[in-house]
C-alpha cells in the first residue's frame, strides 16, 4: 500500500468547499453579494489609503523613505502579535479539539504527515485575514512607488514565512499548555489568551499614543512616534526582517540577508515544532478528550437572582438554563473578549481626542461625533445581536424536542429568549453610549437623546434578532454558522437600515434644537418646528417599537408553524 503525501489529508476540506459551491443553499448568493461588496469596498479603501500615503511620502525624499521603511516594519509588527494569538487559538482547534481528529488519529497516518497537514491548515486558518488585509495595502504601496513586478513576487515570498514564524510560536505555546494543564483546561486557556490579548492591544495603543500624530504643528513628534516603535529588540523580530525585505524590493533591489533570516527562521521553527509534536502531541490529545470539569457547577447566585424575579416557573427555568449553558461554554463568551478590547480602544480614542484644538468647530464636531457614536453603538449592538441573540433559537439544536414536547407555548419560549438577551445588551450599549458621550463632552440634550435612542434600538434589534432567529433557525449548525446564515445576513441588512433610519429621525430634530439653542444662523424654534421635532422623535420610537413587536410576532408564528 502506498503512502499518500501530506496534502492528501487536506482533501476533505477542499472537497467540502467544492461541494458547498456546487450545492448552493438559500441565501448563499445574497450573502456572497453582501460580503463580497463589503470586502471590495474595504479593500479599495485600504489600497487607496496606502497608495495616497505612499505618494505623499515620496515628496519628502529621504525622510519619506525613512517613514515608509518604519511604516512597513510597524505594519508587520502589528500583525506579529495577532498571528501569534491566532496561532494559539487555531492550533488548539486543529490539533486537539477538531471533530475529525477522531477519524485521523485512529488511521495509520504517520505522525510527521499528520503534523505537516495540520500545521499547513493552522497557518492557513490563522493568517488568511492578515493576508487579505495586507494584500491591498502592499499593492497600494507598490503602485504608489511604481515598484517593479519583482516587488509583488517578493511580497508573497515575505508574507508566507512571516506568517509561519508567529503561528509556529503560538502552536508551540498551545502544545505546552495542553500538556501541562489538567484535562480540558485548554479551553480555559482560550479565555486567558483572549483576556491577555485584549489587555495587550490596549496597552500597546496606550504606549505608542497615536493621537500625537494629530499634532501636526510639531513635525518632530511624528518621528518620535515612529521612533517609539523602535527598540533594541526590534531588529531581532521577523516583522523587522519582513519590512526591510519589502523596503528593498520596493526600491528595485533585494535584501538577501533579511529574506534569508525570515525563511531560515520559518523553516527552523517548523522543524522544531514538528519534533515537539512527535514527542508530545498524542499525550496532549489524549488529555484533551477527558471530560471537562463543570464550570459554575452550583452557581447559587444565579438561582437566587432568578427566584427573586417576577417570572413564572417556566420562564425562570428557561432563563437559568440559557444563562448557565452560555457561561459554561467558554467558546461562546470568549468571543466577547475581542469585542471588549475594541470597545475599550474606542472609548480610549474618545478620551484622548483633543477636539478643542479646532476652536471654532469643536462644539459642532463634538455633536456630530455624538451621532457617529450613536451609529457605532448601534452597529456594535447589531454585531452582538447577530452573534449571540440571533442563534438563540438555533442553539437549542437537537435538544429542541424537549421544548416542543413540553407544555410551553412558543410565545413563552421566544419571549423568554428576548428578555434573557435584552438586559445584558441594554446595559452594555447604554454604558458604551453614555461613557463615549461623557468623554467627548457633548451637549446634555444630545446625551439624553442618544441614551433614549439606544434604549429603543435595543428593544428593536434584540426583538429583530430573536424573531428572525426563530424564522430562520439552523438547528444543526453552531452559533457562528447560524450567524452567517441567510437569516443572519437578513438580520444585519435590516439592522443597519433600522439604525440609519433611527439616526436620521433623531438627528434631524436634534440639530434643529441645537441650532436654536446656540442661536447659530438666527435659527428659532416656532410652534410648527416644535411639532415637527416631537413628530420626528415619535416616528423614531414608533419604528423601533413596530420592528420589535412585529419581529417577535413573526418569530412566534414561525415556531408555531413548525408543528404543521
Amino acid at each position, binding site marked *: *500500500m*502506498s*503512502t*499518500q503525501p501530506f496534502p*492528501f*489529508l487536506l*482533501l*476533505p476540506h477542499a*472537497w*467540502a468547499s467544492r*461541494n*458547498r459551491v456546487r*450545492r448552493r443553499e438559500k441565501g448563499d448568493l445574497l450573502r456572497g453579494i453582501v460580503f463580497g461588496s463589503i470586502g471590495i469596498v474595504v479593500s479599495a479603501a485600504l489600497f487607496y489609503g496606502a497608495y495616497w500615503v505612499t505618494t505623499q511620502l515620496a515628496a519628502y525624499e529621504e525622510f519619506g523613505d525613512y517613514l515608509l521603511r518604519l511604516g512597513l516594519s510597524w505594519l508587520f509588527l502589528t500583525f506579529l502579535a495577532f498571528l501569534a494569538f491566532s496561532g494559539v487559538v487555531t492550533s488548539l482547534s486543529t490539533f486537539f479539539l477538531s*471533530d*475529525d481528529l*477522531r*477519524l*485521523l*488519529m*485512529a*488511521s*495509520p*497516518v*504517520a*505522525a510527521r504527515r499528520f503534523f505537516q497537514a495540520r500545521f499547513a491548515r493552522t497557518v492557513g486558518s490563522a493568517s488568511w485575514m492578515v493576508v487579505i488585509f495586507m494584500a491591498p495595502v502592499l499593492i497600494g504601496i507598490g503602485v504608489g512607488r511604481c515598484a517593479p513586478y519583482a516587488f509583488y513576487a517578493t511580497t508573497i515570498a515575505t508574507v508566507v514565512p512571516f506568517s509561519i514564524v508567529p503561528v509556529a510560536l503560538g502552536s508551540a505555546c498551545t502544545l505546552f499548555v495542553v500538556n501541562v494543564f*489538567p*484535562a480540558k483546561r485548554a479551553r480555559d486557556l482560550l479565555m486567558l489568551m483572549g483576556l491577555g490579548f485584549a489587555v495587550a492591544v490596549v496597552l500597546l495603543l496606550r504606549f505608542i499614543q497615536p493621537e500625537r500624530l494629530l499634532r501636526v504643528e510639531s513635525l518632530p513628534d511624528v518621528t518620535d512616534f515612529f521612533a517609539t516603535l523602535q527598540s533594541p529588540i526590534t531588529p531581532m523580530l521577523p516583522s523587522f526582517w519582513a519590512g526591510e525585505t519589502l523596503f528593498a524590493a520596493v526600491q528595485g533591489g533585494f535584501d538577501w540577508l533579511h529574506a534569508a533570516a525570515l525563511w531560515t527562521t520559518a523553516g527552523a521553527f517548523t522543524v522544531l515544532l514538528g519534533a515537539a509534536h512527535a514527542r508530545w502531541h*498524542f*499525550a496532549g*490529545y*489524549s488529555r484533551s*478528550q*477527558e*471530560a471537562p470539569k463543570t464550570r459554575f457547577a452550583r452557581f447559587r447566585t444565579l438561582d437566587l437572582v432568578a427566584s427573586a424575579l417576577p417570572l413564572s416557573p417556566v420562564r425562570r427555568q428557561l432563563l437559568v438554563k440559557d444563562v448557565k449553558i452560555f457561561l459554561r461554554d467558554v467558546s461562546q463568551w470568549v468571543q466577547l473578549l475581542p469585542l471588549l478590547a475594541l470597545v475599550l480602544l474606542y472609548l480610549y480614542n474618545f478620551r484622548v481626542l483633543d477636539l478643542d484644538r479646532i476652536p471654532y468647530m469643536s462644539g459642532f464636531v463634538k455633536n456630530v461625533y455624538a451621532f457617529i457614536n450613536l451609529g457605532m453603538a448601534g452597529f456594535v449592538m447589531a454585531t452582538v445581536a447577530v452573534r449571540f441573540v440571533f442563534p438563540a433559537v438555533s442553539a437549542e439544536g437537537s435538544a429542541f424536542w424537549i421544548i416542543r414536547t413540553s407544555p410551553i407555548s412558543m410565545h413563552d419560549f421566544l419571549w423568554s429568549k428576548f428578555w434573557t438577551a435584552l438586559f445584558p445588551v441594554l446595559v452594555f450599549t447604554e454604558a458604551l453610549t453614555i461613557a463615549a458621550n461623557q468623554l467627548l463632552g457633548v451637549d446634555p440634550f444630545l446625551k439624553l437623546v442618544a441614551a433614549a435612542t439606544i434604549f429603543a434600538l435595543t428593544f428593536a434589534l434584540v426583538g429583530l434578532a430573536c424573531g428572525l432567529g426563530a424564522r430562520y433557525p439552523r438547528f*444543526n449548525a453552531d452559533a457562528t454558522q447560524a450567524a452567517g446564515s441567510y437569516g443572519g445576513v437578513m438580520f444585519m441588512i435590516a439592522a443597519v437600515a433600522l439604525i440609519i433610519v433611527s439616526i436620521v429621525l433623531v438627528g434631524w430634530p436634534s440639530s434643529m434644537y441645537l441650532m436654536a439653542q446656540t442661536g447659530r444662523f438666527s435659527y428659532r424654534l416656532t410652534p410648527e418646528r416644535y411639532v415637527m421635532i416631537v413628530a420626528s422623535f415619535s416616528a423614531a420610537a414608533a419604528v423601533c417599537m413596530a420592528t420589535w413587536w412585529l419581529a417577535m410576532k413573526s418569530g412566534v408564528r414561525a415556531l408555531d408553524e413548525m408543528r404543521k
Partner: protein
Amino acid sequence: MIAVQDLVKEYGRFRAVDGISLDVRPGEIHGFLGPNGAGKTTTMRMIAGLLKPTSGRILVDNNDLERDPEAAKRALGFIPDRPFIYDKLTAGEFLTFHAGLYGFGNGNVASRVHEMLDLFELRQWEDQLIESFSHGMKQRLVMSSAFLHRPQAVAVDEPMVGLDPRGARLIKDVFRRMSERGVAILMSTHTLEVAQEMCHRVSIIQKGRIIAHGTVDEVKQMAGSSTDEHLTSVFLKLTGGGALQEIDEI
C-alpha cells in the same frame, strides 16, 4: 489478533480501566459487555489509538500500538460509538478519502468503494452529501469505511444503536461473514441478545476490571446460572443488578 495486556487508564486519581487483559483470536467475535461507565468505551478508544494508556500494552496483528502505531492501526478497523463523518462530503468521497488514509493506491479504490457501498446497501446514495443521511445510513457508512481496507481486526463500539431491524440484520450478517474470513471482531455492546446470538466469547467489565471471561455458557456457569438462562439475568447477577432483576420478575 487483538491482545490487550494489563491495560490501565487513570484520569487524575480516578482509575477508569484497572489492569484488564483480553485476547481476541482470528475469526472470533468477542463481546465486551459492562454497565454504563464501566470503562468499555475508554478501553475501545485506547485500542483504536485515540487515548494514551497510563500503562499496559496493546497489540494488533502482533504490532505494538505504542511502538509501531501505523502498522497496528493499518491492521485495525475502528467503528466508534459516535462516529464523525465529514457532512459536506458525499458517501463516495468519504470512502475514497478513507481508502487514501489507509494507503490504498488509486487503481483499485473505486471498485472497492463500490463493493462496500453495495455490501452496506448505500450504492444509490454514493453521490449524496452525508449531511442528508439518516442516523442508520451514517452508521452503515462508517462500518463500510471500517471494512474498506480489509482489516485483520475490527473494534466496534455499540454497533446496533439506531439501526432498524433490517440494518441490524445486515450488520450481523456482515460481522459473521467477516469473522468466517478470519477477521477478529471486538464488539462492545449493551445489547445482550446480540452478544448471546453472535459472540464466540464474552468479557464482562465492571469498574474498570474484567469480572468474567469466556464463552457465554462458561460465563453462565461462573454466575451459577443454568445454560438455559438468558444472558441478561446472568449479566445482572454479575454486575450487581439483582434489584433490577427482581423488578423485572414482578
